């Protein structure tokens, strides 16, 4: 059922038409009106041409997903018209660039976006400004308010953009013959992408240095932190490869800098040998893994949850790994901060597993003042006879950093308490058990907090994770369906203890994987009886209308 207050704007065109920027500006417009926003960009791995679109759904009530069927669809080229003319919600309006389409489309409004842009520099890039102007006309924004808004949003040649915007606005107003009135709300004014929130959360959790090599869809964490490094007082390094990234980060951590790294599957695969090094040397490190469809290069700019097993099993050998996957932008902030803390408290690698859909989608958020930073690292006060790998009862040996009067040896080899290489069976056993106890301590810590989120009090059981949780919740709301939704936030160590009461229950799993990796994980680790799996693996996020239909079939 459509929330009558919801309004969705969809703008589509070629790369180089300013489509993405147009989506951002539209989202800002809705947010300024106190509306909740969910913005999803669909773009290809190219710089010019191709087909891009941005969908911005907004409502006075929280929105957890884009809706593909829009109230206003703007097609800036012929291909966009072809692809999106069916994406109209009931009563929706289709506006197309009449300069790019030969025929007249019945029931749609053709506007000469390109001719109006002639005479301005970089005319093609202006088309997105035109799309925003049509939106302004549609939602009844006043002419002078639009002018002021465009000047604020488009800093480069704001004068030209404002003039162009008004020419499109006037024509659109005349053609559309009236506007809809959008209810204002009291949503927070802050709009962030998942990657913005991850970057800030990592910082809130103590980040000093971020090392990364660009790879979509994780690159924007690197870009965000690099752009703000000065204001944040951190150091951002982009070295020659992901192998350098991870090894430099471990070196930095070994002398006391709190570090994080980030990439997508391929880049993390290159880091993997050093992930195991972090396990053996007990070096704290937080790794952001933002998934796209694989295997291999796969589909770089689209979404998937197919790296779950990869994340859970990072690094050869046995050591404690921490894997958590946030559902929302706000949760991404909290989880990033907490993983930084956990890595340092338990001196082991952690992975923030997310996917393009959360990394690059933009939402209205209220970030908590400073999130729970979790337990503090254990520091050594022994400056005379320090042992890096002291056989501590909880497996967590106190930390100390060079320069120090008592030497500090970190190592990839199996070692004695001082960090000197060993092949002695008793010492090997001692250290294996010490690391194992550390994992037990980590599990004990996780038991002191909630690692699994639950939504809804009655109805059939749905289990999901990551940003798919948002798709499920939005689909249930849209379809007016009753269900209990369970989302494990932590995936390793897997919080089995929080599934005890669900043993034997029938459940439906929703995930973005073809093999059903999460389904398998649940079968293995919980007593839940998975009766149906709703899967999607075409690189696109679930659409709530479609997902509601699929859920209805299995609930």
């Amino acid at each position: 059922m459509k929330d009558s207050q919801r309004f969705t704007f969809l703008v589509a065109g070629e790369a180089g038409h300013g489509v993405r920027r147009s989506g951002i500006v539209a989202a800002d417009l809705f947010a300024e009106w106190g509306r909740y926003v969910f913005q999803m960009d669909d773009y290809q791995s190219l710089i010019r041409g191709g087909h891009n679109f941005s969908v911005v759904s907004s409502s006075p009530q929280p929105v957890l997903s884009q809706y593909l069927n829009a109230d206003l669809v703007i097609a800036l080229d012929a291909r966009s018209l072809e692809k999106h003319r069916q994406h109209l919600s009931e009563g929706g309006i289709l506006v197309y660039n009449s300069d790019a389409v030969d025929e007249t489309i019945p029931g749609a409004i053709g506007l000469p976006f390109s001719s109006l842009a002639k005479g301005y520099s970089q005319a093609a890039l202006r088309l997105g400004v035109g799309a925003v102007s049509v939106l302004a006309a549609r939602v009844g924004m006043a002419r002078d308010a639009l002018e002021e808004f465009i000047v604020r949003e488009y800093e480069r040649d704001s004068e030209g953009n404002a003039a162009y915007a008004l020419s499109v606005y006037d024509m659109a107003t005349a053609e559309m013959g009236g506007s809809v009135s959008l209810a204002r709300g009291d949503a927070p004014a802050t709009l962030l992408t998942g990657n913005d929130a991850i970057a800030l959360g990592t910082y809130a959790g103590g980040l000093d240095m971020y090392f990364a090599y660009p790879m979509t869809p994780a690159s924007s964490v690197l870009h965000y932190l690099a752009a703000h490094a000065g204001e944040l007082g951190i150091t951002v390094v982009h070295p020659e490869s992901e192998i350098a990234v991870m090894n430099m980060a471990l070196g930095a951590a070994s002398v006391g800098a709190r570090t994080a790294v980030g990439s997508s599957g391929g880049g993390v695969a290159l880091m993997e040998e050093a992930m195991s090094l972090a396990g053996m040397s007990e070096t704290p490190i937080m790794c952001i893994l933002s998934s796209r469809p694989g295997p291999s290069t796969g589909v770089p700019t689209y979404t998937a949850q197919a790296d779950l097993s990869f994340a859970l099993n990072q690094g050869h050998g046995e050591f404690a790994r921490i894997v958590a996957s946030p559902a929302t932008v706000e949760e991404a902030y909290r989880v990033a901060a907490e993983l930084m803390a956990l890595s340092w408290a338990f001196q082991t690698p952690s992975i923030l597993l997310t996917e393009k859909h959360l990394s690059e989608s933009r939402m209205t958020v209220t970030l908590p003042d400073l999130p729970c930073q979790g337990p503090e690292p254990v520091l050594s006060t022994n400056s005379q006879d320090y042992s890096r790998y002291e056989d501590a009862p909880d497996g967590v040996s106190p930390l100390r950093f060079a320069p120090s009067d008592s030497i500090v040896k970190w190592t990839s080899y199996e070692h004695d308490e001082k960090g000197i290489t060993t092949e002695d069976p008793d010492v090997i056993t001692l250290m294996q058990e010490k690391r194992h106890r550390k994992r037990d301590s980590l599990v004990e810590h996780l038991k002191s907090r909630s690692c699994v989120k639950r939504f809804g009090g009655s109805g059939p059981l749905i289990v999901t994770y990551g940003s798919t949780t948002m798709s499920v919740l939005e689909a249930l709301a849209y379809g007016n369906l009753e269900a209990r939704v369970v989302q494990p936030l932590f995936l390793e160590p897997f919080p089995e203890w929080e599934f005890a009461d669900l043993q034997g229950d029938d459940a439906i799993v929703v995930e973005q994987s073809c093999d059903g990796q999460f389904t398998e994980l649940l079968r293995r680790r919980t007593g839940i009886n998975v009766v149906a799996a709703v899967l999607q693996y075409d690189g696109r996020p679930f659409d709530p209308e479609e997902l509601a239909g699929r859920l209805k079939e299995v609930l």
Partner: protein
Amino acid sequence: MDDLATYAENTWCPGCGNFGILNAFKKAVRRLEDEGVQRRDIAITAGIGCHAKIFDYLDLSGFYSIHGRSMATAQGMKLANPRLKVVAFAGDGDAYGEGIAHMVFAAKRNADITVIVHNNGIYGLTTGQYTPTSKKGFRGPSTPEGSVEEPFSPLALMLSAGATFAGRGYPGRLDHLADVLARAISHEGFSVVDVLQPCVSFNNTYERYNASVVEIDETPGSFEDAYRLACEFDRLAIGVLWQTEKPVYHKELLQGKVPVEERQSTGQRRQAIAALLQP
């Protein structure tokens, strides 16, 4: 008593060139101490192989890294705490094979670390396979008919990549090697010392090196001369082949900051985030 030694049992083969490198390095450390360097400010890292056992034999702090990565580990340590003098030990398999990219980039960005390459032209610990610096025709378990690859000149490569200090040493000339090592560690910027290391078990080069090494008293005045010297195979010049000054990576990047000493407080983090989110 040797206060730079640990209790670790030394397991290098008797006569191994690594002993000379260990002793020369200790001499270099003592000389640096005489010059005012504090021992606690020296941090070491090593790759994997016979060379890397030196990590356990030295009573110094650091990180025993993995194969080919000690140069990356070292750069991370230096960036996080530029007050440390960071020395990466590496084998020729580490530095010129598995981790060659880190060497090239450390030289390119003039990272202020010292890489000491135990170049024995052999993978000793894995029982004698050919390496990037083994001569063509080298017979080992992976090339029983003889390697068909030509070796490259590692120092010429490092010079091309922008190394601001390139040295070569030979454990058979211990004091000379100690001098080159001390000068490399004192050098501000990327320094590499290629150490001609005989492997008594798989590639015993003592005789060849004794006959062919030539100590150079003066560092060549031009890059071209240094490069030519680095490429000579029959006559092996040992000493400082090249030294120059260039902007140093961590200084450019950090602008005087010491990340581990200037961590942001919780209050600063709170403020910075609030300021960033201001509409």
